[in-house]
C-alpha cells in the first residue's frame, strides 16, 4: 500500500514511466520515430522539447484557463514556435551539426501532440506548480525514449556513438529509417508493459488499451422517424433527444456506454439528469461530460440498453469487452469526448488519498 501511495504521489514516475507519452498515450510518435537517429540530435530534441512543454504548460495553467479550447491549441503552436525559434536560429548560426532532416523536424516540435495533450488534459485544470511538474515529468519520459532510440539507432544503424566511430562491421542502416524506430519502439513498449504487469499491476487496467467494443444497439433515428414508446423504458423520450444531449455522433454514445453497468434505468432518468446538468451549464460543455461520467460511474442503479433501443442488440453486444488491446492512454489522449483524463484521475486519486 505504501508503495502504491508512493507511486500515486510520484508525478515523475507516473508521467515519465507508467503513463509514458509515447508508449501509453501514443503521442509524439512522429518526432520520436523520425528525429532520434543519433544521440546528439536526440539530446537536442529532448532539451528543446522540455523547454517547449514546460513553457506551454506554465502559460496554459496561468493564463489560458478561460479561453476556449479551440483557441488554446493554436496558442500552443505559436508559443511552441516561439520557444523553438531561438534554438533553431542558434543552431543554424553556430553550425551545430543538425543534419538537413533534423532541421526539418525541429520546427515540427511546435505541433507535437504531447505538449498539447498535457496542456489540455492537465495544465488548464491544475495549478501552475503541478502543471510545470507534470510537464517536466512528461518531458523526461519523452526525452528518455528519444535518448534510448538515439543510442540504439546510432550504434547499430550508423556504427557510431555521439559521432565517434565504433568500428562495427555490420550496420543496420534500416534502423535509421522510421520503420527501424517503430521496431525498437515496439520492443520498448513490450518491456514497459511487462514492467507494469509484473511490478505495478495496479496500473494494468489504466494503461491497457481497449478497443471500444461498446456497441449497445443504440442507433440514430432518421429525421421524422418515431421511436416506439414501448421501447423507451415507458417514457416518451426518444433517442433523438438523447442524441441532442450527447451529441450527434454515434461514437459519442460509445463513450458514455462505457460508464453504464448492465441493468435497468429508464431513459427518462438519463434525460432528466442530462437536462439538469445542461441547465447548470450554458452548453453541453466538457465539465458536463465529466459530471455525467461521474454520475454514471457512481450511480447504484443500472441501465438496460434494450429499453431505449429500437433495434435488437448485435450479437457482440452480449459478449464481454474484448481483451485489453489498445491503450486506455489513447482514450486519455482523446478530444472532448474524454475530458476526464488520466492526469485528472491522478489528481483525483491523490485527493482521495489525502482525504483518507
Amino acid at each position, binding site marked *: 500500500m505504501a508503495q502504491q501511495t508512493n507511486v500515486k504521489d510520484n508525478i515523475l514516475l507516473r508521467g515519465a514511466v507508467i503513463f509514458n507519452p509515447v508508449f501509453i498515450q501514443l503521442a509524439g510518435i512522429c518526432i520520436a520515430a523520425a528525429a532520434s537517429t543519433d544521440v546528439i540530435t536526440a539530446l537536442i530534441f529532448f532539451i528543446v522539447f522540455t523547454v517547449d512543454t514546460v513553457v506551454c504548460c506554465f502559460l496554459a495553467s496561468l493564463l489560458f484557463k478561460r479561453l476556449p*479550447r479551440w483557441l488554446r491549441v493554436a496558442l500552443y503552436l505559436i508559443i511552441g514556435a516561439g520557444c523553438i525559434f531561438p534554438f533553431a536560429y542558434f543552431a543554424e548560426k553556430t553550425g551545430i551539426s543538425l543534419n538537413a532532416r533534423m532541421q526539418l523536424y525541429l520546427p515540427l516540435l511546435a*505541433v507535437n501532440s504531447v505538449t498539447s495533450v498535457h496542456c489540455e488534459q492537465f495544465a488548464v485544470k491544475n495549478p501552475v506548480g503541478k502543471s510545470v511538474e507534470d510537464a517536466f515529468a512528461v518531458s523526461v519520459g519523452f526525452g528518455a525514449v528519444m535518448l534510448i532510440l538515439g543510442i540504439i539507432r546510432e550504434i547499430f544503424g550508423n556504427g557510431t556513438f555521439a559521432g565517434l566511430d565504433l568500428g562495427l562491421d555490420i550496420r543496420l542502416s534500416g534502423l535509421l529509417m522510421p520503420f527501424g524506430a517503430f521496431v525498437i519502439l515496439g520492443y520498448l513498449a513490450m518491456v514497459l508493459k511487462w514492467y507494469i504487469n509484473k511490478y505495478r499491476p495496479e496500473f494494468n487496467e489504466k494503461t491497457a488499451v481497449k478497443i471500444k467494443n461498446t456497441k449497445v444497439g443504440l442507433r440514430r433515428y432518421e429525421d421524422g422517424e418515431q421511436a416506439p414508446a414501448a421501447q423507451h423504458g415507458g417514457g416518451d423520450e426518444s433517442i433523438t433527444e438523447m442524441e441532442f444531449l450527447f451529441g450527434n455522433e454515434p461514437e459519442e454514445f460509445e463513450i458514455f456506454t462505457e460508464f453504464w453497468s448492465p441493468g435497468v434505468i429508464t431513459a427518462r432518468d438519463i434525460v432528466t439528469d442530462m437536462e439538469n446538468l445542461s441547465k447548470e451549464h450554458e452548453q453541453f460543455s466538457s465539465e458536463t461530460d465529466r459530471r455525467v461520467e461521474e454520475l454514471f460511474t457512481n450511480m447504484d442503479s443500472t441501465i438496460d440498453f434494450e429499453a431505449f433501443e429500437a433495434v435488437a442488440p448485435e450479437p457482440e453486444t452480449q459478449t464481454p469487452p474484448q481483451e485489453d*488491446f*489498445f491503450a486506455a492512454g489513447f482514450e486519455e489522449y482523446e478530444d472532448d469526448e474524454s475530458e476526464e483524463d488520466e492526469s485528472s484521475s491522478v489528481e483525483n486519486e491523490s485527493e482521495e488519498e489525502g482525504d483518507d
Partner: protein
Amino acid sequence: MIDMNIFSDLMITALYTAFFQNLVLSFAYGSSEAVRISLKPRTFGMFTAMISGFSVISGAICLPIDRLPSVIALPDSVHALVYAGVLAAVYITAAVILKTIFRVSDHFLTNLGIAALNTLVLAIPFINRRSAYSFAASLGSGLGAGVAFVVAAALLASGVHRMSENKEIPQVFKGTPVLFLYISLLSLGFAAFSGNSIFS
C-alpha cells in the same frame, strides 16, 4: 496545354505524396494522429478533407511568401516561424468562420484542431520549399497529404482490428507493442519504394 501541365503536375505530386512516398508511413508525419483516427473509421472522410484543406491552403500561402526576395535569403529557422504563423492564422480563421457563421459544435472544432495542428500539415510547406515544387505541385502535395493520411489510418485500422481478434499474440505484446511492430511493417513496405538498403 498549359492547363494540362498544371493538372499533371498536381496529380503526379498528389499520387507521389500519397502512395509512392506516403508521408505518414515513410516519414512518420502525423503518425500519432493517424493512430488515433484509425480507431474512428467514420471520421476518415472528414479528416482527409480537413488535412488536405489545411495542407493546400497553408502550402499555397507559404509558397509565394517563400519567393519574396526579402524572404528567400532568410535562415531556415525564420521560414519555420513564418510557416507556423501561417498555419496558426489559417486555423484560427477557419475556426472563427465555422464557429460564427456555421455554428459548428465545439467537438467539431476539436477535430478541426487535431486535423490542422499536426506535424503532417506543418511539414507540407517545408517539403514544398525543399523540393522546389511549383504552385500546382504544392497544391498536389497538400492534397496528397490528406490522402496519405487516410491510407495510413485505414491500414492501421484494419491491422488493429485483426490484431485485437488474434488470440495468439503474447500477453506482453498486446496493445501498443504489437501496434508499433505493425506500423513498422507498413513503414518498411513504403520504405521499399525509396530504394534504400536496410543493410549496409
